[in-house]
């Protein structure tokens, strides 16, 4: 059962061949077995999930209509608000926070009759690239439990790779879906900014955050997109569908793009590990074999993406996280001397190091006298990066490059060197600054048997095309079919 993809499971349930209750029970069996090792979830909802599964089975048996994800057990990152369970953002400051509303994507999952298994671990407030910044628990990579699953959506990626759910939703501000998908050998899509509602996604960098699927294969990502994409009146930045219509992403998925024009940016990606380079070159060869025309392009401003990102994202974060002050909800310090101490002590006690670092960076960048030099400058760089992509897409259908310079690194390897950690997002960050969609698909296993990801980028709102291009590669390879043998270890 756990070998099925989300699409296969869905089809089986819809056809009455498989009961959702059995699939859901199987998932929880695996969770009981492997979760103590992997640590993907902050909370699980077995009772609720079984109830939903039974309900779906009953409706299917009765011939009643069901949603697109009927009976499919899915996970969501713990920064999406739910009225059931806590919404923690893996932070002590929200450890016991219960949201009074569901995020729009959660409503959509429920309306599609998905079975929500649990809420998955992440770097605190989505700040990090290894999930080691979680204030609540540790998640490991199912391929090698001594390594990180990537981040910040490390929990959802580990859950999908470890088959502790059939698909998941993550969020991506600078690579947080694509990089863990790459590290865990699965598929992760960051949709165009505005394609999926952010309402109910706890904000980190509002102008960069985007929710997207993390799945076993490209078709599952298309299926998830069919459920979550679209305009939301509650999110002013979500795109009007008259401007950019949402389509059925599954419909033409298997149709290859004819006369595909692929661009590569060798100068920019030269710093990647040898194994990663090799995987990229093989991918290029494959596309050429499929008839694609591959050209080298230059994108001169990509080198400044990380610098611009860490100004913009932290500036927005410093403001977005101001509300966690101990006054209205969340952790409050005991015995404050005055209301200033309610703020300063509550925040000092409950925020982790990386969150504090980014709040300070962002506060500094927005301070009067520095605004022009940092924030305004970063916005200018952002515009230049955007035009780099706009120009590039005049000459090509997609750009391919690595997802990350390395495969999954060792737990603890980079925690003491934030800059080194920031650099692991070098290939993903520009995509968020430009607002374009990007996908990570598995394209190799390195000599340590660790997955390598291939990143494909497309113009805004070209998710349908992007998925078809990814599917062209996937059809010819079987990297997406590789599953890790999870070595059960005893964590404390």
């Amino acid at each position, binding site marked *: 059962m756990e070998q099925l993809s989300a699409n296969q499971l869905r089809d089986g349930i819809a056809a009455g061949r498989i009961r959702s209750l059995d699939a859901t029970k199987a998932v929880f069996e695996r969770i009981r077995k492997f979760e103590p090792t992997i640590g993907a979830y902050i909370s699980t909802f077995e009772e609720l999930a079984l109830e939903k599964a039974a309900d779906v089975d009953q409706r299917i048996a009765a011939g009643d209509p069901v949603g697109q994800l009927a009976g499919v057990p899915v996970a969501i990152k713990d920064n999406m608000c739910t009225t059931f369970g806590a919404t923690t953002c893996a932070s002590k400051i929200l450890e016991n926070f219960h949201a*009074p509303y569901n995020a729009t994507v959660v409503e959509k999952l429920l309306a599609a009759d998905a079975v929500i298994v649990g809420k998955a671990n992440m770097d605190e407030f989505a700040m990090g690239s290894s999930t080691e910044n979680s204030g609540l628990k540790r998640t490991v990579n199912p391929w090698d439990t001594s390594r990180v699953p990537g981040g910040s959506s490390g929990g959802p990626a580990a859950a999908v790779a470890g088959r502790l759910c059939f698909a998941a939703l993550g969020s991506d501000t600078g690579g947080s879906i694509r990089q863990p998908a790459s590290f865990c050998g699965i598929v992760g899509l960051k949709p165009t900014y505005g394609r999926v509602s952010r*309402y109910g*996604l706890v904000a980190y960098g509002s102008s960069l955050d985007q929710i997207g699927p993390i799945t076993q294969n490209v078709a599952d990502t298309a299926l998830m997109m069919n459920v979550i994409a679209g305009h939301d009146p509650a999110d*002013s930045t979500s795109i009007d569908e008259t401007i950019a219509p949402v389509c059925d992403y599954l419909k033409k998925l298997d149709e290859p793009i004819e006369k595909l024009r692929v661009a590569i940016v060798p100068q920019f990606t030269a710093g990647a590990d040898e194994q990663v380079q090799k995987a990229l070159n093989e991918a290029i060869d494959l596309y050429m074999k499929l008839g694609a025309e591959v050209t080298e392009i230059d994108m001169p401003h990509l080198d400044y993406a990380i610098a611009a990102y860490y100004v913009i994202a932290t500036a927005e974060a410093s403001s977005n996280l*101001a509300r966690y002050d101990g006054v209205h909800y969340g952790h409050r310090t005991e015995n404050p001397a005055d*209301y200033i101490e309610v703020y300063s002590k509550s925040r000092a006690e409950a925020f982790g190091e990386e969150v504090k670092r980014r709040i300070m960076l962002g506060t500094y960048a927005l*301070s009067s006298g520095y605004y022009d030099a940092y924030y305004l400058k970063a916005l200018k760089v952002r515009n230049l990066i955007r035009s780099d992509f706009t120009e590039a897409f005049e000459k090509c259908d997609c750009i391919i490059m690595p997802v990350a310079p390395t495969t999954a690194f060792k737990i603890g390897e980079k925690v003491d060197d934030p800059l080194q950690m920031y650099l692991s997002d070098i290939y993903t960050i520009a995509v968020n600054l430009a607002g374009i969609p990007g996908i990570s698909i598995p394209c190799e296993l390195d000599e340590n048997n660790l997955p390598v990801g291939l990143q494909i980028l497309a113009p805004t709102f070209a998710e349908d095309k992007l998925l078809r291009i990814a599917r062209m590669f996937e059809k010819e390879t079987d990297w997406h079919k590789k599953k890790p043998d999870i070595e059960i270890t005893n964590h404390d």
Partner: protein
Amino acid sequence: MHGVEYKVIVGLEIHVQLCTKSKMFCGCAVEFGAAPNSRVCPVCLGMPGVLPVMNKQAYEYAVLTALALDCRIAMFTKWDRKSYYYPDLPKNYQISQYDLPLGADGLIEIPLESGQTKKVGIIRAHLEEDAGKNLHTAGNYSQVDLNRTGTPLLEIVTEPDMNSGAEVRALAIELQRMVRFLGVSEADMQKGHMRFEPNINLAITKDGKEYRTPIVEVKNLNSFRALERSVNYEEQRQLDEFLDTGVTLEMGNKTTRGWDDEREATVLQREKEEAHDYRYFPEPDLVPVVLTEGWLDDIRLSLCELPLKRQMRYVREFQLSDYDAGVLTADRSISDFFEQALKTGAEPKRICNLLTQTGLKIAKEKSFGINELGIKPQSLARLAEMVDAGQISASSSVPVFEAMVQTGKEPEILAQELNLLQTSDAGELEKVIDHVLAENPNAVEDVISGGKKSKKARGFLLGQVMQKTKGQANPKVASEILAKKLG
């Protein structure tokens, strides 16, 4: 004091609460006096993950006001976050407009006591969300009521163009009348719909040299009285301080003071204006507002002649007193009612009197608006015409008006039903008068003799005519006929 001349200089920052049904960025009702924290939702509570959605009506009200203030209207604006920590501000930032206010470079004309008017410059007008309220009535801790959080506020900043407490008060009152006229705010001072923060200092000439005193900002005044008095108080206090210490703008810092209503004095709140760093930056959760020509034209349709202009026109064109014109233009509905009545061609002064003396009195007794009285302006105009034509007496207009309110019938019918119609038909009156003269030869004699009894006798005869006609004779016409007959 010899050799010292001075002038007070005041600029005003005004917050006006717009009367939209729902809040600025969520669907919660804007409602005064509801149970604490009962008009809130995840958005205005600033819960994790929520996003604001702009209230279009609030934007239109704000633009309409900016148009009335003769501002340059920005066709492109955006929202900014203004950061500061305070328990009544759940996100710890306020959504506001920083460098692109929706209106700028305007002016407001205010009436002066002299009868002249003065133009005060408007620096900017922008829209923002209100904060909640901290309540300090629970003993050891404070409570926060977030019902007000997210209420749309229009902030208006004037140039420092005012030179007395009276002028500042006049501007505040004129602005109140204007926003009510435009229908964008109830501007109820008791409910905190208008809040004022004057910036005050003095320009002093002493021994031929010019000095400026340090600027004082008085926070959060919510009555016209406190506003005027705080300016007057500061005028004196700053003069005394200057004469005492010689402190000037260059030496002193801008300070913040509060108004103590009981002591009738301003009280120092912050010695140094702390270098507030609000860390403004563009609100990423909202898209910029692009005002199209078409949209602006639609908003402009709601623009009307402003109350002060109207008041002055009533005085000029209809010879109404300034007071009456002021009463008529205190409220848009009254003024519009008056204008509608005028369209029939009835006499403005008469309509004004009926409306202000009787109509508003009845409306006030019933706590009704003028349009809730159930009278059409045309009916009021007919009543005015009846009085002017002598069909009923001025005093009879009151019971007719009251009956109109009660029954909704037209004045002609009511005057008849109430037997209040006057006879102005000269022929008919002549017959009655002839009769009275014949019946009262002595009185006629007294009148004709012209002695001291003459005036009294004349009154007696007119009284007899009124009696015979059961009060329905037009006294003016009757006395004219009498005079003619008695020479």
